[in-house]
């Protein structure tokens, strides 16, 4: 591609920390964001979340995030937790891309695409509780507008004056990757000059209840007593998901556009495509090898060989099998030093976590290293890969959806050493 699409800004609010560089440092150090929530946790800030810790075990709770440090809009007091995470991540990304404040012509040509699987769960539960308890007339006018899936995208547009296309997409476990692919489409068709691709989801009691009911939750994610019961009744367990939450955002633009603005890039996107393979309704494709073949065919694009894979394994047998099949196909093709990270092991699983995977892939290319990963007990699963040239983000969801995103290293200066960035933290 003569004028590739490049990543010029990143932002993240997730269990590994707040801010792209803080998240990268924790990721590179192999830290885990899976933890139990404590009574003094900032996640329990009054008015933001009321999920009592006693009802939840270990999960990928967001840490170190203080919304007021990131959001300037007076709409902050109306924003739900999901919206706060997203708006902060999007602001970080635009700030990192040196676009703020957006000029009038650029704000008209700047789009936002947000992926989310469930959106604002906590307030949905609160709203329904009240309606069921007190009757249909008890609907709360201040909560209701926040219950639509695109509420967070709307708040982000208000915060930063993003007047271009504003799209929110859902694709189950691949919602983040689907947002990236849609953002690339918008840029490619000329619908915008700059686009922020983002993903957000939160942990909510409705989702936890449902996952527990369907026996898909990892026993560690349940309160101690229920977890112990679940371990004893292991036979009935059908999955081992550790839920997580967070938001991540990437600013994308054409390389020529970034150059004209004097901004260096983290990486380029060589391909971001949505396709599918036959699968049962609401389920994952049963043939992981065939799914891997289809995914790699969708990812095919001229350029260097894939150096590493940012996988989406999340504790569901079928989903984990896809990552294994992709690795098997790629190593079978002779990529001896292939790297692999299953980042959801460190942050928990949420529908739009793929956006965080994209942030990590872009930063790995920029930092010239894809960290290795162990199994949590010190045994190496995969080695670190130095000087990676191309990374594959494996997006896949129930219903047979496949969304590979291919990131390439760019030739310019590393953003870690770039002086163009206004971001306060460094790599």
């Amino acid at each position, binding site marked *: 591609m003569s004028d590739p699409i490049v990543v010029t800004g990143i932002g993240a609010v997730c269990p590994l920390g707040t801010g792209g560089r803080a998240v990268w440092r924790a990721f590179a150090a192999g830290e885990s964001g899976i933890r139990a929530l404590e009574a003094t946790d900032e996640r329990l800030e009054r008015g933001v979340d009321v999920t009592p810790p006693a009802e939840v075990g270990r999960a990928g709770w967001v840490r170190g995030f203080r919304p007021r440090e990131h959001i300037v809009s007076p709409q902050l007091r109306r924003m739900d937790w999901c919206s706060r995470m997203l708006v902060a991540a999007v602001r970080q990304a635009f700030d990192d891309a040196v676009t703020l404040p957006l000029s009038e012509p650029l704000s008209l040509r700047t789009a936002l695409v947000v992926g989310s699987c469930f959106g604002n769960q906590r307030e949905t539960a609160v709203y329904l509780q009240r309606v069921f308890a007190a009757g249909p007339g008890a609907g709360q006018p201040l909560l209701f507008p926040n219950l639509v899936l695109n509420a967070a995208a709307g708040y982000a547009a208000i915060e930063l004056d993003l007047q271009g296309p504003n799209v929110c997409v859902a694709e189950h476990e691949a919602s983040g990757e689907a947002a990236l692919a849609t953002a690339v489409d918008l840029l*490619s068709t000329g619908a915008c000059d700059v686009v922020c691709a983002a993903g957000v989801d939160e942990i909510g009691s409705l989702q936890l209840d449902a996952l527990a009911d369907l026996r898909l939750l990892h026993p560690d994610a349940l309160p101690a007593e229920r977890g112990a019961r679940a371990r004893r009744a292991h036979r009935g367990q059908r999955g081992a998901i550790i839920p997580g939450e967070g938001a991540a955002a990437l600013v994308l633009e054409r390389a020529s556009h970034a150059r004209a603005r004097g901004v260096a890039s983290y990486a380029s996107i060589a391909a971001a495509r949505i396709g599918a393979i036959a699968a049962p309704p609401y389920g994952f494709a049963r043939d992981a090898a065939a799914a891997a073949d289809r995914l790699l065919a969708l990812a095919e694009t001229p350029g260097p060989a894939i150096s590493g894979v940012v996988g989406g394994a999340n504790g569901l047998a079928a989903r984990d099998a896809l990552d294994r099949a992709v690795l098997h196909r790629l190593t079978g093709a002779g990529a001896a030093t292939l790297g692999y990270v299953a980042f959801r092991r460190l942050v928990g699983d949420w529908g739009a976590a793929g956006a965080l995977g994209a942030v990590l892939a872009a930063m790995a290319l920029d930092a010239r290293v894809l960290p290795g990963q162990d199994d949590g007990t010190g045994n190496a699963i995969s080695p670190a890969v130095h000087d990676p040239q191309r990374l594959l983000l494996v997006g896949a969801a129930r219903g047979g959806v496949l969304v590979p995103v291919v990131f390439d290293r760019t030739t310019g200066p590393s953003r870690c050493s770039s002086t163009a960035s206004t971001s306060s933290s460094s790599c």
Partner: protein
Amino acid sequence: MPENRSTRPRVVVTGIGAITAAGPTVAALRAALHGEATCIGPLTLFDTEGLKVHIAGEVRELPPAGLLPRAARVRASRSDRFALVALEEALRGSGLRLPFTDPARVGVAVGSSTGGMLETEAYYQRRLTRRPAGASRTCLAAATVAAPAGLVAAAIGALGPRLSPSTACSSGAIALAMAASWIRSGAADVVVAGGSDALTRMTFTGFHALQAMSSEPCRPFDLQRRGLSLGEGAGILVLEAEEHAHRRGATVLAEFAGAGLSCDASHPTAPHAEARGAVHALQRALHDAGADSHEIDYVNAHGTGTVHNDASETFALKRVLGEAAGRVAISSTKSLIGHLLGAAGAVEAIATVIAINDRYAPPTLHLRERDPACDLDYVPNRGRPLEIRSALSNSYGFGGNNCSLVLRRA
């Protein structure tokens, strides 16, 4: 590189399917558009005791969908079933036969604002009362807004691009816009696209709490309008590359000429004071279609019947169409079938295709006294013959989301 309008593939509509309060077919919708009676009536789907509003455009007849996969028979939500009923009709009309010869070239884009929320509510109610989740648990698989698109794809074996836009009331329109972009970029030859939404307690009580609903069938653009009437249903269109359609001898119903997306970036629910987002969406749609404002003969308005929307939309149309706004026929078909939320943009695009083909401007019902702030031709109460070259269909949603579509006579 940005698309070149002169060389990009033209996108055409070759099939339409709809299920609405008017009935489970496009024929029923067409009859409603040609009639003068609203399909909005008493709501029976759930309890509305204690509310001031008890009416909606409820789907009374939900026929079984032959394409419903066996594995989804218990799990499929009401929204899922709407989507499949509309899909079957659209496919039949398009002349496409299953299985597809190249399923990887067939995409699916179906928007929804609440997906399986109606069934999720039942599940949650049981949990709250500490009753066993029982059968309601099986519906959780279809709880997300991505479920209708997934089921449509599974039903027809589509393996091309797939997307489930969820942008509140513009979801269906944005699904159509994304579908067209896939065809133009060469990612797909055919895309089954549209929107589906069922009435839910959450949306009904929510709009009621916002005091945005009317206790009588909505009266868009009327001085005495009191708010919207909710509805439910699905609209599915088969969009196709023109060359692909011609190659297989398909009947072309209309050209999907262009789309414009924008965001107000000003308020979570209220339109911008100067309708800037609506103006940008209209301008972008016309630009995308390569259309001049004088080419537009009909507008299917968002026309919810709320005070702010109708005046704001009128302002935007006047701003963009200029002097042509005065001669353009505008109607809000929400007065006939209600506001279908995530399905509205798709069903209204279908109404627009019908209008183009029938050379007919559908009416805006219950328009007795025009609001001075709404001073255009809204085709009050009775439809009329109209030669339509090109038409606009507007959809606006929470979050300041705007999408305008341009459909053109084939």
